[in-house]
């Protein structure tokens, strides 16, 4: 995993994606959420889903804060008993997507032919087409999904919803081999290391 760009000072706020591998445990969402709320830190986006490994869940949490704050938060999360591992990354270090759905009246769409072109330009596709309304879907970064709202607003956008961010860490080798180590009583150094990133370090893991 790469370091934070030298150009970005550690005390400037920016978007971080925090990736948390956890056991699938009732109440854990609350335990993680209160780590943010206690410090009055807003969660911009939160997604929980299964991971590549059965029974292991993955949280993607997006916050806008300084690297120092995020590192401390990440350590507090990793301290929770049912949390296996926490990573945090800048936007440069992850591939991410958000999905959005847009509901518009079908008659308007049908009348205005150029709408179809606009949709194609924005990479949207129709999910449902009914006599009264049509639902489009698009996936992308925030700016892209936002742009389509603007495009559709004049055509009587009825409803809009956007998902949380899901993100893949560019340099990650996945969690499978790590989990096997976690299951050992005496795992290797690297797996359980609570590493503090320094300028010369390659990893941003804790």
């Amino acid at each position, binding site marked *: 995993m790469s370091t934070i760009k030298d150009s970005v000072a550690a005390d400037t706020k920016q978007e971080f994606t925090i990736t948390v591998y*956890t*056991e699938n445990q*009732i*109440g854990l969402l*609350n*335990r993680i959420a*209160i780590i943010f709320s*206690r410090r009055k830190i807003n969660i911009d986006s939160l997604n929980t889903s299964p991971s590549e490994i059965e029974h292991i869940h993955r949280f993607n949490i997006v916050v806008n804060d300084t690297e120092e704050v995020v*590192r*401390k938060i990440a*350590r*507090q999360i*990793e*301290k929770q*008993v*049912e*949390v*296996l591992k926490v990573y945090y990354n800048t936007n440069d270090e992850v591939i991410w997507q958000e999905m959005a759905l847009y509901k518009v009246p079908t008659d308007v769409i049908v009348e205005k032919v150029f709408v179809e072109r606009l949709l194609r330009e924005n990479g949207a596709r129709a999910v449902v087409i009914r006599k009264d309304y049509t639902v489009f879907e698009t996936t992308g970064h925030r700016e892209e999904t936002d742009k389509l709202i603007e495009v559709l607003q004049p055509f009587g956008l009825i409803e809009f919803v956007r998902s949380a961010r899901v993100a893949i860490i560019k340099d990650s080798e996945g969690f499978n081999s790590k*989990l096997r180590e*976690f*299951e050992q*009583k005496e795992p290797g*150094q690297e797996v*359980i*290391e*609570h590493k*503090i990133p320094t300028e010369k370090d390659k990893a941003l893991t*804790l």
Partner: protein
Amino acid sequence: MELAAEETITSAEAKTTRTVTGSVALLDGLIAEGTEIVFGYPGGAIMPIYDAIYDYKEKLTHILVRHEQGATHAAQGFARTSGKVGVVFATSGPGATNLVTGLADAQIDSTPLVCITGQVFSHLLGTDAFQETDVINITTPVTKWNYQVTDAREIPGVLAKAFHIAKTGRPGPVLIDITKDAQLQKFDFAGYVPCNHIRSYRPKPNVRKEYIEQAAELINAAKKPFVLFGQGVLLGSAEQEFKAFIEKTGIPAAWTILGAGAIATDHPLNMGMLGMHGNYGPNVQTNSCDVLIAIGMRFDDRVTGRLDKYAKQAKVIHLDIDPAEIDKNVKADVPVWGDCKETLPMLTALCAEKQHPEWQAEFKALAKIEQEELIDKELFPGTGELTMGEVIQHLNELTNGEAIIVSDVGQHQMVACRYGKFNHTRSNVTSGGLGTMGFGLPAAIGAKFGAPDRTVVAIIGDGGFQMTIQELGTIMQSGVNVKIIILNNQFLGMVRQWQQLFNDKRYSFVDITSPDFVKVAEAYSIPGKKVTEREAIKSSLQEMLQHDGSFLLEVMVSKENNVFPMVPQGCSVSEIRLK
């Protein structure tokens, strides 16, 4: 049931199952974990467990407290003096919410507790049933781990996990909420298996040799090294390793209030207490040392004062078992994470044998200033109103530092910790992080159960005593031998001190009226005495200590004495005021 219970715990190999209720499985598990005492209070939703414990009177002592908060503090006192896990029983709803203060206190002071709460039947969860409260969510921020059991078959495994989590790594409180149906449910119990591994839980980080080497290098090159130690030394049972480290390196050391006693008060390298009301030398020298070695402490704001003026000149080495503590408040140049029981001997081995006579002499010189300007007046006033310090001084002389001192919170706490003499580890029990008034009396009860062969003296103010005064009933009923000293200044003294110093003496609601404490004690069949004259202090303390059983001694001290030295809020530690 008595017979059935016996066969479970005898051997781990006996894999024959037997049909038991969840309650019996719980009690068998507690016994298998070595639990001998439970502090608790029954109620509707925990009745099945209380019915089961009726048959366990021989194996489990149950201490009936007078309020569930008292149960948590008693369990804390027990854990702090014994080094074992404190166990608490409480019912659902108000019983469970009354645990919150004790849990928060145990969480911030890293005290291992396992609390069991009853809960309404599982089919009633979320229906606002009688005495139902969402105890899991209420206690999440104040527990290391918590879990709700709705099926009896989960109980042995969950209890084993709870003990493992509570006592390993950085210890802390754990809560298990068990629905009434799970307590009643019968299942095939195959015997209790303790837990020693949870894949997602790493109690202690692996030690990194290169950090030990870097730390040793800094220490060996240091001209003015200074050690700060906290409760981590006690929690890691690393007192010997710690002593060996400072003795070999000749480094002066100072303690946080929870670290007191890790080395004896009169050890030549023990330079005293850190922080807001700590000793003069340690605070001043923090800002003139060249290498600061923090061991098992977390740089609380009461220790550091103003952070941006804290030890900026020094290289910081931080030894802690909890990686989240490294860099949390003070940036570490060398983070030595790990159990100090392991890291200290490794560090000692790499450190050169040294003495720092001149540097140590600087501490002694500052100590002399403090002694002459302040301590002598507090401990040996001779004339005028009685001081808290002289009571502690007499107590030290009579117990010769062998007693366990339990304090409450406020001025008397600072005086007790500053001047109390501790020859042994696990002898200073106080509420450090949370500052819980009302902690003292119940904690003293637990402390005595945790160390039955030692004298336990509770030092409490007139305010804090009235917060958990009902635990006198627990003392009466259990017959526990606790010596209680009330240092009565007829004020909520610490707040009054601040109002005097920082709010132009606007004494806002700090003037507190008290009942006749000696008569209250008498009503609970506890003998007592009130002291108002200097001449009577020593003989009364003697009478208290010699009495076979609990005794309450109320000493009327100066109303408006202040605790000094003091690092005023917003000031750096080196700006400590002697008056």
